[in-house]
């Protein structure tokens, strides 16, 4: 069982995409949203978040741009691209299959 804060390998990018599917967000907003939505189970540290954001942006799945925040500061907001939307759909489907498979093994 993963300890609090541990993410299953490879799921962080999917969670970021899912978070951004709701609305564009900056880095800190993403990490807070993931923590909230997981009821505090997942805590995304900057050392994992920013490499993942960089990877997603390089792959063209998200797009970052500077905007002013609600506190009148500048923040880099990330938006899901069409490519990212399709990738999210595919990853959710694959994740569902994996969870089912693991569940079947554990129930046997």
């Amino acid at each position, binding site marked *: 069982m993963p300890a609090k804060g541990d993410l299953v390998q490879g799921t962080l990018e999917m969670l970021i995409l899912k978070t951004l599917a709701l609305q564009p967000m*900056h*880095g*800190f*907003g993403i990490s*807070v949203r993931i923590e909230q939505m997981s009821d505090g189970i997942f805590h995304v*540290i*900057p*050392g994992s978040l*920013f*490499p993942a954001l*960089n*990877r997603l*942006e*390089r*792959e*063209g799945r998200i797009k970052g741009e500077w905007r002013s*925040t609600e*506190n009148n*500061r*500048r*923040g*880099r907001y990330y938006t899901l691209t069409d*490519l990212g939307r399709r990738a999210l759909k595919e990853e959710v489907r694959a994740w569902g299959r994996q969870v089912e498979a693991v569940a079947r093994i554990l129930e046997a």
Partner: protein
Amino acid sequence: MLWLNRLIAGFSALISKRHKRAELNEELHAYLEAAVDEKMRTGISEAEAWRRARAEMGSLETVKSKVSAVGWDSWFESAVWDIRYGIRQLFRSPGFTAVAMLTLALGIGANTAVFTLVYGIVLKQLPIAHPEQLYRIGEGELYCCEWGGLQGTWGTFDYPFYKHLRDTDGSFDQIGAFSAGLRTFNTRLPESERTAQTIDGEYVSGNYFATLGLNAFRGRLISSFDDKENAPAVAVMGYWAWQHQYGRSVDHRIKVAGERTASSGRGNCTSRLLWSQVGTEPAGVVDSAKPGTSV
């Protein structure tokens, strides 16, 4: 398309390295500030909020290096650094560098030499039509030439025996023949003021070139029609000699002086005469001129 995006992103990261770094720096600071705002909302002091936010972030440099390690360009960049470091180290110890370079040079040179040898002896095919169909008749290792007299078990035959083989054997398409040992011939251009030059050559049977499946580079090669009694004496010049000694002369009528040797077995009856060059062998076949004759 993912790989293409990654490729383009890597290039753009390499080009605008400084800009990307500054941008990441700004983004991380924005993250810290947002985290501080969030923490102060719970009622703690600003100083305490900063302390906690920094602790959660960890080392900024670590985060930055993790981010830049994402793309292939980071690999490229570190390779460039490694190469620069390596070159500096080489300059620092010139003795070692010299020995290493010498070792590599000798090693590469030796390998090249061995391969050239193996290629020449084993791999390279004869420049003829069907090298795999070519057989030598006779025995012994030194078969082609007579250097200072016949020795041992050389596979040399007299001309009547060759003719007998050629006319009676059915297992080969053709049986060609060439003389044992090289002869020296005198050659000169007609109407030339220059003295005749000596050139190495050998006598070949009329079907010699047809047996090897060769075609003339210029003019024609000797054919079995030249292999008749009273046929005019003809010679073929090697490509190398034609190119280097005769400056690619377009004149076919280079005169070759030599001895016409009677081959009928009636003894050593020779007469001096002139051959006319009728053609040039294709490039790369033999490096010496090869006046052939119909006897």
